[in-house]
C-alpha cells in the first residue's frame, strides 16, 4: 500500500464561465480518477458537481474528459498516469456545461426520441416470438451500450460543429437505427417505415465520415463504426445509390431483406 500526492486540474464553473482549478490530493493504491474526485468532494470542495452511479463501468454516468480524452472516470485507473504528471479533468466538451463536471446531455435524449421505436410484428403475441441466436447477435452487441455518450461527445461532427446538432443523430443513435434494422422481428417496413432511407434522410448518416473516434472511446468495446455505421451506410446504398438493387426490388424478385 503506497500513497502519494497527485496534482489535479479540475474544471470548475458553469455556463457563465469558469476555469481549471488546481488541487493537490492524496492517491492510494488501486484508485481510479472518480475516487480522487470523491476525495476532493469530501475534503476540499464539497460542492464539486459530478455525476456518477455504479462505479463499475455499467451505468455510464461518470463520463468526463481526462487529459483531453473522453473517458469513464470510474474506469480510469490512476496507475496509468505518471506520479508527477498533472491530471486534467474537464466536463464533456461537446455538450453545454451545467456546473463543474456536469453537462447538459439533453441532446442525446432528444435524439433518442427521434428514432422510431421497435415495431412489433402483427399477429405475434407475447410468448410467440421465435428468434435464432445468430439473428440477434448483431443487435445484441449494440444493446450492450450503456449510454455514457462518450461517442456522442467525441464525434467531431457535433463536437466541432454545434450547427450540425439538429441534423445529426450521432453514433449512439445511428447505432440504434442499425440495431432496429437488424432486429429479426422488427416490422417497420411492413408498417411503411424505411429505416435505411431515414438513416440518411432524417438522422444524418451522411455526416459520418467513419473516422472511428466513437469506436475508440467506447468503454463497452462495441465496434460502432465497423458493425453498425458502415453496415448501415451499405444498407442505405442499397436503397438510395444502387440501381441494381433498386431495379431488383422494382421487378419484385425478392426483397433485399432476405
Amino acid at each position, binding site marked *: 500500500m503506497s500513497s502519494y500526492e497527485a496534482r489535479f486540474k479540475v474544471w470548475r464553473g458553469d455556463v457563465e464561465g469558469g476555469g481549471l482549478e488546481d488541487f493537490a490530493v492524496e492517491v492510494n493504491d488501486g484508485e481510479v480518477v472518480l475516487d480522487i474526485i470523491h476525495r476532493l468532494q469530501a475534503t476540499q470542495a464539497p460542492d464539486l458537481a459530478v455525476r456518477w452511479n*455504479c462505479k463499475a463501468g455499467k451505468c455510464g454516468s461518470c463520463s468526463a474528459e481526462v487529459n483531453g480524452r473522453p473517458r469513464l472516470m470510474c474506469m480510469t485507473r490512476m496507475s496509468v498516469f505518471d506520479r508527477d504528471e498533472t491530471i486534467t479533468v474537464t466536463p464533456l466538451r461537446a455538450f453545454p456545461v*451545467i456546473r463543474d463536471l456536469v453537462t447538459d446531455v439533453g441532446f442525446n435524449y432528444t435524439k433518442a426520441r427521434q428514432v422510431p*421505436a421497435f415495431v412489433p410484428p402483427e399477429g405475434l403475441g407475447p410468448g410467440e416470438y421465435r428468434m*435464432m441466436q445468430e439473428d440477434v447477435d448483431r443487435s445484441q452487441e449494440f444493446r450492450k451500450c450503456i449510454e455514457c455518450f462518450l461517442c456522442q461527445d467525441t464525434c467531431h461532427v457535433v463536437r466541432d460543429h454545434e450547427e450540425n446538432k439538429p441534423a445529426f443523430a450521432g453514433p449512439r443513435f445511428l447505432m440504434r437505427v442499425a440495431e432496429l434494422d437488424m432486429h429479426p422481428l422488427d416490422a417497420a417496413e411492413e408498417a411503411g417505415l424505411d429505416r435505411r432511407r431515414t438513416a440518411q434522410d432524417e438522422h444524418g448518416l451522411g455526416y459520418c465520415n467513419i473516422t472511428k473516434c466513437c469506436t475508440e472511446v467506447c468503454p463497452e468495446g462495441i465496434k460502432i463504426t465497423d458493425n453498425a455505421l458502415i453496415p448501415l451506410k451499405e444498407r442505405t446504398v442499397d436503397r438510395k445509390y444502387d440501381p441494381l438493387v433498386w431495379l431488383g426490388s422494382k421487378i419484385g424478385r425478392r426483397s433485399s431483406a432476405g
Partner: protein
Amino acid sequence: MVDRQEWDVVVVGAGGAGLRAAIEARERGARTAVICKSLFGKAHTVMAEGGIAAAMGNVNAGDNWQVHFRDTMRGGKFLNQWRMAELHAQEAPQRVWELETWGALFDRTKDGRISQRNFGGHEYPRLAHVGDRTGLELIRTLQQKIVALQQEDFRETGDYEARLKVFQECTVTRVLKDGERVSGVFGYERESGRFFVLEAPAVVIATGGIGKSFKVTSNSWEYTGDGHALALLAGAPLLNMEFVQFHPTGMVWPPSVKGILVTESVRGDGGVLRDSGGRRFMFDYVPDVFKDKYAESEEEADRWYDDPDHNRRPPELLPRDEVARAINAEVKAGRGSPHGGVFLDVSTRMPAEVIKRRLPSMYHQFKELADVDITAEPMEVGPTCHYVMGGIAVDSDSAAARGVPGLFAAGEVAGGMHGSNRLGGNSLSDLLVFGRRAGWHAAEYASGRAAARPRVDDAQIDAAAAEALRPFSAESGEPAEGPPENPYTLHQELQQTMNDLVGIIRREPEMKQALEKLGELRVRARRAGVEGHRQFNPGWHLALDLRNMLLVSECVARAALERTESRGGHTREDHAAMDRAWRNVNLLCALTDPTGGLAATDPVRGQITLARETTEPIRPDLLALFEKEELVKYLAEEELYE
C-alpha cells in the same frame, strides 16, 4: 414561488419497477410523471447480471409457477408474503414475454425461444438472461418503451410529454398529504436546486434499497432508502427491515471498488473458496440441516460438476447467507487474505480460455479495476451489502401501501415478497410483476378520484422547503447547538456503524450501541452544513439524504434487535437458530411521531416504534404444494394442524 404541476400518477424512481409502473399507468390512461435522481436509464437495475426468474419452461418443460413458488418460499424461509410469491410466480413469464414485444433481445435456445439458466435455489433452469448484463437489457427495454409511448403521444398531440414525462435528476423529499390521502410530492431539481410540487392523487414509490447506509455495499449512491423514509414520513409502516442480504462475494481490493459484486456464477462454474493457508474451508461450515445435500470431501465436490446425479454439491454453493457467514468467520479467525477477504480461485480449476469465455465481465472487472488476472491468480472476496428484503408494507394484489390511501410501492422498496432471503433472479421479475400492479392500481385509484382531486396544503410545502434549506443555514446556526458538521463525515460514520454493529453477524450489545450511535448522529445531522449554492451541489444532496439513511438504519437496527432468532438475511450470534415461533411474526416499523416532524423526536428513544403482527396463514392449496416433512421444519405445530 414553487413550481406546481398536476398529474394523475407520480412514480418516484425510474428503475425497473418505476418504469414498469409508469408504462402501465400511462397505458391505462393516467397522465403519469416519473421522477428519478439520476439520468433516465441509469438506475441501479443496470447492475443486475444473472437474469429474470420466470417459469416459462423453455429449457426444462417440467417448470411451472408452482415450482417457482415453492423455490421462492423456501428461499425466504417461509416468511414471504405468500400471496405476493404466488402472484410473482404466476405472472413472471407473461412479464418477460411482454418485454420481447417491446424490443428486448434475450439469449436464445436452439429452437429460438428465450434461453434460461440455472441459479442458486431454483430447481430448474429459469433465468431469462442476456449474457451477464440482463439488468441493462431490462432498463433499456423499458426506457425505449417509454419513448415509444411518448412518440405515440407526439403523433396525437404534438407533445412528447403530454401524458408521460420523466423528470430526471430530481429528488423527492416529502410525500404531501390531504388529510389521510396522498396529494402529491415535494422535491427539488438537482441541477438548479429549484423546488417543485407535483400534485397527484396517487404516488408510486419505487426507489430501490438502502445499501448506502453500509460501508461495504454493491449498491450505488442512489440507494439511500429514500422511498422507505418517504413512506415512513407519510405514515406508512415498514415491514421486516431486519432482513438485509449480504452477498458473500464482493471485491475487497482495491479500496475504490470494495463491495462491487463478483457474480455467483463464478462458484457455480467451479470456483472455490480458500483461506490464507490454501484450505477449502467451506467444508467446515455445512450446517446440520444441509449435511445430506452437500459433499464432505473435495473429491466428491469436484465430481459433482460433471456428475451431479451421483454426487453431492460442493459447499461453496450453499445459500448466500451461509457462505457470507463462513467468510466472515474465517477473516475474524485471522485466516483471511491480505486485504481482509478470502481467496476465490478459478485459475487452478479451469483453463484460461474457458474462464474468459464463461466469465467475460468478471475477467475484465478484475483486470481493469484490480489488475488481477483471474486466469492466473485467485481473487480476493468478502461479503457485501446487496439487497434489503424488508420494505414498505403493501397489499399483495394492489401494491398499495398500508394506511395511506393513494400511496403504492413496488420493487426493492416494497417488503414481503422475498421473506427473509431473496433468491437470485427473483428481483428483476419482482420489479416487473409488482411494478405493473402498482401502476395499474395507482391509475385505477387516480381515475376514481378524478372529480375530487386532493388539495395540496401550502403549509406542508413551506415546511418541506424549510426542511430542505436547513443545511444552508446550519453554517450560521445557533452556536448553542455546536459547530456545523460535514455531511460526508457523518455519512462515513453512519456506514461504519451499520457495517460493524448491525452487519452480517449481529449481537444484542452491539445493536444497542448502534442505536445510541444513531441517536448521536441524528443530533449531529441536524447541524449538517453545506458550502456553495443550490445548483448541482452534491454536499447539499447528501445532507438531505442523511435524514433518510438515519431513519432506515434505525429501522434495521431496532427490528434486528427485536427478532431473537436467525433466519435468512438476519443472523444473531446470540440466537443462532431459526425459531418456528417467529415464522409467522412480522415486525412493523412506524414513525413514533405521527405528525412527521422529526425535530421533536426524542434523541435517545429514537424516531421509530416497532410493532409485532401475526401473518395471515398460508392458503391450504399453496401449503399442499410442499411435503409434510419439509413444512415441519418451518411451521409451528398449530399452523400445521389448522
